[in-house]
């Protein structure tokens, strides 16, 4: 039987309630903010001795000193002489705890007097209601970290039904930038989910948007972790290893030659894939890039016309110079030119009810897109996309958008998430659940500002995604700046070290001052967790992710330097066939146009044929062969004109 570490106290000025109680401890007790304790009542309620579980939210210490001046007087104003006093003043350590759970649960009564004990592992499980979802045969627990206090090391589990749906879903994590808390926590949690996701719930994959830096670029490489972290992994039953299956996607750079990613070193290119879209893919989400000022009802009507009547089909119009089959931005530009030329020729202001000003505006906006999203959008219309329809279980798909303009990032985000949603609705994505990790959520779903497509999409996911298996893991530094419905619909919230100004915002008023102070000083590797089952937030420690840190990876595998055209083609083809040489490339591409070579390369990368050389060669347009010039046949002499011909040369 463990000894009590405290006793419940209550006075008229400081009474206990069903939700809060006070207790005092010895001076050397291992109680602190966030410690979970158990109270044993002494008088049975409905035949059962009450047990109350609480978490410490505030602590006080005072002595019998009535005024600080008395202490000054007692030591003649010399702080050093205090240590010479033969007796220390009587001191109390008084704590306030918020109730986590009461047993029996009814009737709900104020916490009774009784002894206070440090919670054991079993107590923690009961206190946080984890016993409900950790039963053998029906476990849905996902470890989030270790609760540690006074010798107790208890694993804390989230309920998968409330983390990934359907009961609740979505996770939101807040923390100051620069401490890698948010990214590390998500990396760790994904590893935990991949390990512990219950088999009866099906398969799960993750899609991560790398918006800045190289932090997510080396998830498949082993990082250095210390023994203390290894011990945590062991306690939580998660292997301390990097992700086994990771695939990277990124658009090309503007020149279309190299992929725009920090993971561009040749040694790592085996699982790096280009992300490119054509005209159709972009036009579907044109409103992401075009704001209300750009697109009024008239422009919107023209864009719809293009999507429905012009794109990917033979289009003819008596006023146009020729038929068009628009499949790329280049084709679209040619079509616009033809329409405008026809208007000029006819000296007309309207073509098929669309005013020339509207046509010019839409042309201008759409052609801007290919410029603004150069590398992502190809003139040739080549599409290289995530493997929608064949997502693999326990795989992380990282989309590196760090090197892109904001518009391109928004476009990628909107399209990828929309496609995920569509496939999940049809249940043909390849997996049953997808976790989408988005950093800088305050940028994509701000609480104020104009209503954007991306924000509307995030709201939709937050409010309806859990029924589809589409789960949002959002991260931000300032939670108060994110749309309320997005954070409000996140069933689970994690908090790393917080900014002081952020903690002063009204959203944190429900936390005690001591808890907020602790949040402002959390170390790396510590989190405060809010989860539907937990009546109060809990502090846990999580292990450092077993993946290589971004800067370590960038150092070990530096970015590939820009090379000339031939080398760029060689580099990408070698990923498919290491036997390809520079000489072979140079011989094959010869005097072909660069655009043709790039198109051929893109098709080859997309198709991944078994015979790479043959396929690549077949994708290049054939050059006209040198025909042998036959000797010109001798022509018969032209009969001369008669002498007397008035038109003859003799005259």
């Amino acid at each position: 039987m463990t000894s009590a570490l405290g006793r419940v106290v209550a006075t008229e000025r400081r009474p206990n309630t069903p939700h809060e109680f006070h207790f005092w401890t010895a001076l050397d007790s291992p109680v602190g903010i966030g410690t979970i304790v158990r109270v044993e009542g002494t008088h049975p309620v409905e035949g059962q001795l009450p047990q109350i579980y609480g978490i410490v939210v505030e602590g006080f210490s005072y002595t019998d000193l009535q005024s600080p001046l008395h202490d000054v007087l007692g030591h003649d104003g010399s702080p050093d002489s205090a240590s010479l006093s033969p007796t220390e003043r009587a001191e109390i350590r008084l704590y306030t705890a918020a109730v986590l759970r009461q047993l029996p649960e009814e009737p709900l009564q104020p916490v009774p007097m009784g002894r206070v004990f440090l919670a054991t592992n079993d107590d923690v499980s009961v206190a946080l209601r984890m016993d409900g979802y950790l039963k053998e045969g029906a476990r849905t627990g996902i470890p989030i970290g270790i609760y540690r206090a006074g010798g107790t090391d208890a694993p804390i589990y989230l309920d998968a039904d409330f983390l990934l749906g359907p009961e609740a879903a979505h996770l939101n994590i807040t923390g100051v930038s620069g401490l890698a808390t948010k990214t590390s926590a998500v990396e760790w949690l994904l590893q935990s989910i991949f390990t512990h996701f219950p088999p009866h719930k099906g398969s799960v994959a993750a899609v991560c948007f790398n918006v800045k830096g190289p932090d997510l670029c080396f998830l498949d490489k082993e990082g250095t972790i210390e023994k203390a972290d290894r011990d945590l992994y062991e306690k939580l039953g998660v292997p301390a290893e990097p992700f086994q299956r990771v695939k990277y996607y990124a658009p090309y750079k503007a020149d279309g030659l190299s992929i725009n990613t920090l993971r561009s070193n040749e040694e790592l290119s085996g699982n790096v894939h280009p992300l490119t879209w054509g005209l159709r893919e972009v036009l579907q989400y044109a409103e992401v890039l075009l704001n209300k000022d750009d697109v009024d009802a008239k422009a919107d009507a023209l864009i719809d016309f293009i999507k429905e009547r012009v794109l990917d089909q033979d289009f003819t119009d008596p006023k146009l110079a020729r038929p068009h089959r628009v499949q790329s931005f280049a084709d679209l530009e040619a079509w616009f030119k033809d329409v405008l030329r026809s208007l000029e020729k006819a000296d007309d202001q309207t073509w098929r009810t669309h005013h020339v000003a509207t046509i010019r505006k839409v042309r201008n906006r759409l052609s801007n897109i290919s410029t603004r999203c150069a590398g992502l959008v190809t003139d040739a219309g080549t599409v290289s996309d995530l493997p929608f329809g064949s997502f693999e279980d326990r795989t992380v798909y990282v989309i590196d958008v760090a090197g892109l303009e904001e518009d391109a990032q928004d476009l990628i985000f909107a399209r990828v998430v929309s496609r995920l949603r569509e496939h999940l609705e049809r249940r043909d994505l390849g997996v049953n659940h997808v976790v989408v990790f988005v950093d800088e959520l305050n940028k994509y779903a701000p609480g104020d500002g104009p209503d954007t497509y991306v924000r509307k999409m995030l709201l939709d996911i937050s409010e309806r995604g859990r029924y589809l298996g589409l789960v949002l893991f959002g991260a931000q530094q300032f939670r108060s700046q994110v749309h309320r419905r997005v954070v409000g619909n996140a069933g689970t919230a994690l908090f790393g070290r917080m900014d002081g100004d952020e903690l002063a915002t009204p959203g944190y008023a429900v936390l005690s001052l001591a808890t907020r102070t602790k949040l402002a000083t959390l170390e790396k590797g510590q989190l405060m967790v809010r989860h539907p089952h937990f009546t109060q937030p809990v502090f846990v420690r999580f292990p450092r992710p077993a993946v290589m840190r971004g800067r370590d990876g960038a150092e070990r595998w530096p970015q590939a330097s820009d090379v000339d055209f031939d080398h760029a083609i060689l580099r990408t083809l070698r990923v498919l066939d290491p036997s390809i040489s520079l000489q072979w490339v140079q011989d094959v591409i010869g005097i072909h146009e660069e655009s043709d070579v790039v198109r051929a390369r893109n098709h080859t990368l997309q198709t991944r044929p078994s015979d790479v050389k043959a396929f690549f060669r077949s994708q290049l347009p054939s050059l006209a062969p040198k025909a042998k010039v036959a000797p010109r046949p001798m022509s018969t002499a032209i009969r001369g004109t008669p002498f007397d011909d008035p038109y003859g040369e003799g005259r």
Partner: protein
Amino acid sequence: MPHYSSETQDASFRTAVRQLKAALGSVAHIQDAPGTIEQLSRSEEAPRTVAARSLEGPTLAARTVGGSYEPRFVAFLDGVQQSRVVTYIDGAPIVHGTAAAVVRERSDRRLRTWAHRIEHRLYAPKRHLPAAVWATLAPFAPTDSSAHDADEPAPSRHPLATLDRAMRMVQQHREDLEQRLAERWCVDGVGPVYIDGGISGSERVARARCAIGVVKSHRTLYAEGDGLTILFRLRQGQRSTLFAIEPSRRTPVASWYLRLRDATGRDPSFGLVRVEIAHDTPSELGERADEVSRWLLAEATPLALPDSRWDRMAYGIRDSEEFLRAIT
């Protein structure tokens, strides 16, 4: 049968009230007492000066306590009392008295309870109560607050006089508890014990080298004439020479006055205590007084504020009183 001479909470004042009300029925009109008799009564013995036989030199003189002050007390002993009127019957007060004492042992600068005792008694003036009422009170084993020695006049029936007698009995009860605990320390404890009050009441304690009695109140001053002047002029860190306290029915002890704090601008008794120790070998008494004085001067901090007697009270005694207040 009510159980009154133990540390149980059942014998508390409220329990006594309930039980007496049940026993006495309509005879007694029991009301909430406004406070303890100690709080309400201001009756004290008349102040006086008494000549004492000097043990160190021909007359009372001042001595400066030399050397460095070192805290050597291992324990502190003190007691408290509470007397409350339960009811009046034909003007005769029935008083519930609580006496408590504690020894707080100091270890690593922290005080812990070594032993404590709480006892409750009922006091009723048999002489002034109807016989039937006294018979009803018999199960409560009351102490007769009208009892007197044969050579004393019969006590007055004045309620205040009866209250005074009851209060003195409670006081005596307290002193008995203190002495019992002090005797226990002298047998089982290790090290000097700071006892609040005199030590002459118990022979064993009065002769024990470990017991140091410290008296804070000065209704009786053991000096006269020039001796008083010497006394009032004692400065911080000075003591008077030793003298003998030889009460008729108590064990003689050696005593001296010690000034604990600077009394400049204060009343004459500010920081002044009277110390009692065993009347040891006379040749060693002076050294012993200096040694004990150094111990006492070392207990100047922490201050015993907010107690009004802080200038004369060691923190260990305040702590003891706080402990007893918490449990009584």
